[in-house]
């Protein structure tokens, strides 16, 4: 393939999803190594690229680059099939926070030579990329401006791929397949009507409208795409890009196209736990052929087919009396003991499942031990976990690796992580989520995997909980001045808050001013929070804390956009400290504010505690505020009680 560099089909795979849908799993291992039907995601994408005649792949990692790098190295040593025809290079850049940044990076580094395929690591497909890209090139011959061809799979409206992800509405010219309008609903959105601009209909002889498309997160890009990203620094995600292009098509002089996959082509993206379930099932049912649960291993046919889509690795052992109902995948060396019933589940390698265990709709990774008489329903258990006897785990409980669940514990819709603190937190969280389940399950009746609904709703789910009781204190001081940026941010936020603008726009604004004044990221984090806490509304308002609460609630997306990493959380806390000192109306309420932030799941304990520590170290004025002290006491005891709760 080295001979003609030019004709080699290039593909860029973005190894991060830039969201926390898979927390806490995605915290402890890179998304790309999350196993779907027993096979790490990365294998699927690589193999399908190889099938599609791609010659060169750039894996772009923003986190855990090294892990991925040596994973790739290993599989090349093991002569993975794709390694023969494809050369894979891993790019790393921890500075990238969004896909936009990645594209800019790529543009800067000049990695792509020409037309290329842009896919996410969470894509699972069996399409022939080469052919599609060729098609895109042809199209570019016709329309110089053609920047990107989006790839969609048409499915029934009721299909879970749509139901559980953000549905798309798309209007396009029927003759040219030029995208005219692209609208992404909020998940489970109830809006029944969308307004189609008249000119869309007037200017085109025929218009196709699609409302039942599943986005496989695949795009065929012209060379012009990375530069476009660089020119418009407010493009954060692909959707930004799409909208940007559509809104000011003339200015950017580029246009979008879309293509639908044929009947026998499969494509889906794992965007949240629900789609994760669906895709796993599809893989088991062989829709993604030739991709299968044996993808990536040179050895095929190591699985015994036992009817009803039950597969078990040859080396796995079943006891006589255990029964597998349907849609079961059992990895190698796993042993299942007597009277255990497994259905609609994936069980990884080297697991030991005890007697009288019931496992339904769950995903159990490698080296998990489940003791006798357990019940595991609609849950995800990551590697090296141990589940004690008689425990019941259900409703989308997600257990990160190396957790030991004590015997007889009951977990409903909980997030469990190995460290004690987290555990306690998540248990608290669970209270709120459990309520979530009820009203959701009532919403979509009899949905098997209701548990996994949490994944995307988690962000909202957090404000449904309000445990704190605020004492409302009267005060109305005036906000003091900070630097211009802060002012700008405050203004835009304030405006946004009054006019109830969409958070996305605000984020854009903030970013643009960020770039304008070129502020460092951590400063941005700091100032955003600072701004939030020093909005004029607060000044006039009587009941500060409630307002703060509302504000937090309203700007949750903004926050979650900026406050992701640990460092950013520290920024945020510092901002709180700062504003508590600077703004009178927050005087003495730092504790409550923190509590709110904490309830809103913006900050987590360990960072809180850490922060609290260095507060005391460099004895800051608020360190010994009663409210603050109260809050941390409460935090302590909360942890204790949760500890004896399990």
């Amino acid at each position, binding site marked *: 393939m080295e001979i003609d560099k030019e004709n080699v089909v290039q593909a860029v795979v973005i190894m991060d999803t830039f969201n926390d849908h898979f927390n806490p799993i995605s915290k402890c291992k890179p998304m790309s190594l999350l196993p779907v039907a027993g096979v790490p995601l990365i294998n699927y994408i690589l193999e399908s690229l190889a099938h599609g005649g791609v010659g060169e792949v750039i894996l772009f990692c923003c986190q855990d680059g090294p892990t991925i790098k040596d994973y790739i190295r290993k599989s090349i040593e093991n002569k993975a099939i794709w390694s023969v025809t494809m050369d894979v290079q891993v790019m790393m850049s921890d500075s990238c926070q969004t896909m936009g940044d990645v594209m800019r990076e790529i543009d800067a580094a000049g990695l792509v030579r020409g037309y290329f395929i842009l896919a996410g690591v969470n894509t699972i497909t069996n399409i022939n990329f080469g052919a599609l890209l060729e098609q895109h090139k042809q199209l570019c011959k016709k329309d110089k401006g053609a920047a990107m061809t989006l790839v969609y799979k048409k499915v029934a409206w009721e299909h879970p791929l749509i139901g559980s992800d953000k549905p798309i509405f798309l209007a396009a010219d029927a003759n040219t397949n030029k995208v005219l309008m692209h609208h992404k609903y909020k998940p489970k959105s109830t809006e029944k009507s969308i307004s189609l601009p008249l000119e869309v209909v007037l200017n085109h002889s025929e218009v196709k409208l699609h409302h039942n498309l599943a986005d496989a997160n695949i795009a065929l890009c012209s060379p012009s795409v990375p530069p476009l990203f660089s020119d418009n620094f407010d493009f954060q995600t692909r959707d930004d890009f799409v909208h940007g292009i559509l809104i000011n098509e003339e200015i950017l002089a580029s246009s979008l196209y879309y293509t639908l996959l044929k009947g026998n082509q499969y494509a889906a993206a794992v965007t949240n736990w629900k789609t994760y379930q669906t895709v796993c099932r599809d893989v088991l049912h062989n829709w993604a052929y030739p991709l299968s649960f044996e993808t990536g291993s040179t050895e095929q046919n190591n699985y*015994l087919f*036992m009817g009803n889509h039950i597969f078990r690795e040859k080396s796995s*052992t*079943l006891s*006589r009396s255990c029964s597998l109902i349907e849609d079961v995948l059992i990895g190698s060396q796993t042993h299942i003991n007597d009277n255990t019933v497994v259905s609609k589940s994936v069980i990884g390698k080297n697991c030991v499942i005890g007697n009288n265990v019931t496992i339904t709709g769950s995903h159990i990774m490698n080296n998990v031990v489940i003791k006798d008489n357990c019940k595991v329903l609609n849950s995800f258990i990551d590697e090296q976990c141990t589940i004690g006897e008689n425990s019941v785990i259900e409703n989308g409980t997600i257990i990160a690796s190396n957790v030991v669940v004590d015997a007889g514990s009951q977990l409903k819709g909980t997030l469990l992580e190995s460290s004690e603190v987290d555990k306690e937190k998540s248990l608290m969280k669970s209270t709120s989520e459990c309520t979530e389940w009820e009203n959701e399950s009532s919403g979509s009746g009899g949905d098997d995997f209701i548990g996994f609904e949490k994944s995307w709703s988690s962000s909202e789910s957090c404000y449904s909980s309000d445990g704190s009781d605020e004492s409302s204190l009267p005060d109305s001081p005036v906000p003091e001045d900070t630097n211009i940026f802060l002012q700008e941010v405050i203004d835009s936020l304030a405006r946004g808050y009054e006019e109830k603008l969409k958070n996305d726009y605000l984020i854009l604004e903030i970013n643009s001013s960020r770039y304008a004044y070129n502020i460092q990221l951590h400063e941005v984090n700091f100032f955003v929070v600072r701004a939030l806490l020093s909005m004029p509304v607060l000044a006039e308002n009587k009941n500060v804390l409630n307002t703060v609460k509302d504000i937090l609630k309203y700007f949750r997306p903004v926050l979650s956009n900026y406050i992701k990493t640990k460092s950013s959380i520290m920024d945020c806390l510092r901002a709180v400290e700062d504003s508590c000192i600077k703004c009178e109306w927050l005087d003495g309420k730092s504790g409550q504010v923190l509590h709110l932030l904490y309830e809103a799941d913006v900050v987590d304990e360990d960072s809180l505690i850490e922060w609290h520590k260095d507060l005391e170290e460099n004895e800051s004025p608020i360190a010994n505020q009663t409210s603050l002290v109260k809050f941390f006491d409460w935090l302590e005891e909360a942890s204790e009680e949760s500890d004896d709760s399990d």
Partner: protein
Amino acid sequence: MKKEEVQEIFLKIMKEEEDVSAGVAAIRTLLSVIENYKVTTVRELDLNMQLAVEAMKHCDQPVTAISSGCELFMRFITFAKLDFTDFEECEQIMLQRGNIFLNTLLEARGKVAKQAMPFITDGCKILTHSRSRVVLQAMLEAAKANKRFEVYVTMSCPDNSGELMHKQLVAGGVDATLILDSAVGYIMEQVDIVMIGAEGVTESGGIINKIGTYLLGMAALELKKPVYVLTESFKFSRIYPLDQQDLPKEFKYLSSVLKSGKDLTKEHPLVDYTPPAYITLLFTDLGILTPSAVSDELIKLYL
């Protein structure tokens, strides 16, 4: 050399070693005959042999295996004879090769069992008839390889050898059920495969086996279940029975009965003949054969 002595040796082997089949026992007897009764000429040897064979056929044991085994051994002798002129040396060679021969025979059962392995699939139901050492071994090995399968064993009158089979299977951790001979038709529709042993395999590729096998075969064919026969190759014999009547008497009845001169039509035959049409495959130490392959083998040997 005394006829009784020979019989004694033979019966001793049969008695002492539970799981050695009559054919092997016979051959071993013959070997020991060669050892013990020194002779000087090939001719004498032949005489001795024939005598011994006769003797064994008359010691009240099911004779099918014996005869086929002996036949084979005689053939072996003749081959051996051809190679050498000097009788002394010939005899030595004969003994030494004889042992090799014997060992291959002893290995046979293991091989057969191995052949049958893949046919015992996880979760299948097997019907077997009477007691066959090969079948037993095959099933026990399958059980060891933690395959989950059920076995139905016929009682198989008159000697109820099925009960022993059943006992041994259960002991070996196989999920086995004992059924009446007359329940074959009833059980047949539930089972997936029929797996039986054989006392002798005829030129036609059919088998001679414990009485009731024929019926079993017919039922299986009617319900389209495959019939697999597990047998060692030394049970191949050069007879070609046309029907049940055509089976040699000494096969059907114990020599004692024959001697007693009773009216045979009133007697229960011990074995029956199952024509090749009812047999799907034979698993032998020579490999997995279709019935038609048997004659091929025999022809290669005897012509």
